[in-house]
């Protein structure tokens, strides 16, 4: 692996991490506001996180 590739992989991980972190944080907020809707919120959170993760992995494999 050359240096630009490693830097690119790092950037991808930062981006994906920020995205998933934001989703997780927002889901926490939402669950704290409405604990009775936690099931639905968790499902939506997992789907969104999985979609971002998929893009992250696709970019990592392309780099």
């Amino acid at each position, binding site marked *: 692996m050359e240096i630009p590739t490693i830097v690119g992989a790092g950037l991808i991980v930062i981006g994906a991490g920020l995205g998933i972190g934001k989703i997780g944080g927002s889901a926490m907020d939402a669950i704290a506001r409405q604990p009775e809707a936690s*099931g639905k919120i968790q*499902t939506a959170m*997992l*789907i969104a996180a*999985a*979609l971002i*993760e*998929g*893009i992250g*992995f*696709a970019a*990592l*494999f392309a780099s």
Partner: protein
Amino acid sequence: MQRPFYFKIFLVATLLLGINVFAKENSHPVEETEKDLKSEIKEFIGHHLLDSHDFTLYTVDEEKNEHVGFPLPVILWDNGLKVFSSSKFHHGESVAEVNGNYYALNHGKIVKTDAEGTITYDDHHHATNEKPLDFSITKNVVFILLVAILMFFMFTRMAKSYKNNPIPKGIGRLLEPVVLYIRDDIAIPNIGKKHYKRYMSYLLTVFFFIWIINLLGLTPLGVNVTNNIAVTLALALLTYLITTFTANKNYWKHIFWMPDVPVFMKLVLAPIELLGTIIKPFSLMIRLYANITAGHVVLMSILGMMFIFKNWIGSPLSFGLAFALSLLELLVAALQAYIFTMLSALYFGSAVEEHHDH
């Protein structure tokens, strides 16, 4: 009083591992083996990630080519069917001769060679030898078949136990909540009450298949089916085909000629939407493959740390981290099965969605 006892066992186990490594350190000159060890660990991880034509549980002696395991049948189509045992390869060390044709193993792939087993390479280090069509029962195929048989017996027993009694017995008690969860929390909310029954069989099969095979991947058998991209490709292809062939008029209309959108935008959006139908299963394939591969690579690298540190810290650290990561992998195994099923249900749901006014 239970906890201190287990703690003692944990301590003794890690210390014993440490002594073992210590013993190895003393018998080898350290500086010389440093470089070799790292590349050897890398090679071992790379070898673990590949599919293989024989089932090796444990290598006794690398130089003497002694392994504990058993060979698997090799089935080739090369101007006629050729079936022979993979023991003829002697773990890639020798050339197998079948009816005047010679075959050799090159990084786990079978290539056709001459009697001496010469393999020619091009500039990119790929073998240029002719490759016969390979239908072998490899390690991955063995485990796919094993899981299929296991699931068949599990679910037929579960179904039989419902005949006399509405309350399941045995394995059914474990599986019933999971089946109900998939029906009530994955299939019905995403596909809708009207159509969900058609897709339940596929969703249940794919969920249990991925889950069980991921869990088998965590055992020390060295199974790694879902980190073979061909397997995840087949699974994603099934989702794609089912979505495409069960889709209604409304689904295709929303792809090619969206209602209530200006004509110019329709022309721009149609190719993007069409590409989207392929990207969706593609991301399913990559997600499952990459998650499981990443898990296996990290776990094996942590285990490899034991041999790199070579002091009393290394073994307990490696043991503890590997233990924690294994627990995380248990979660990932179920989570990936859940995500795959969930997204498949979501795509099926979009395929059968009824028309509604915007």
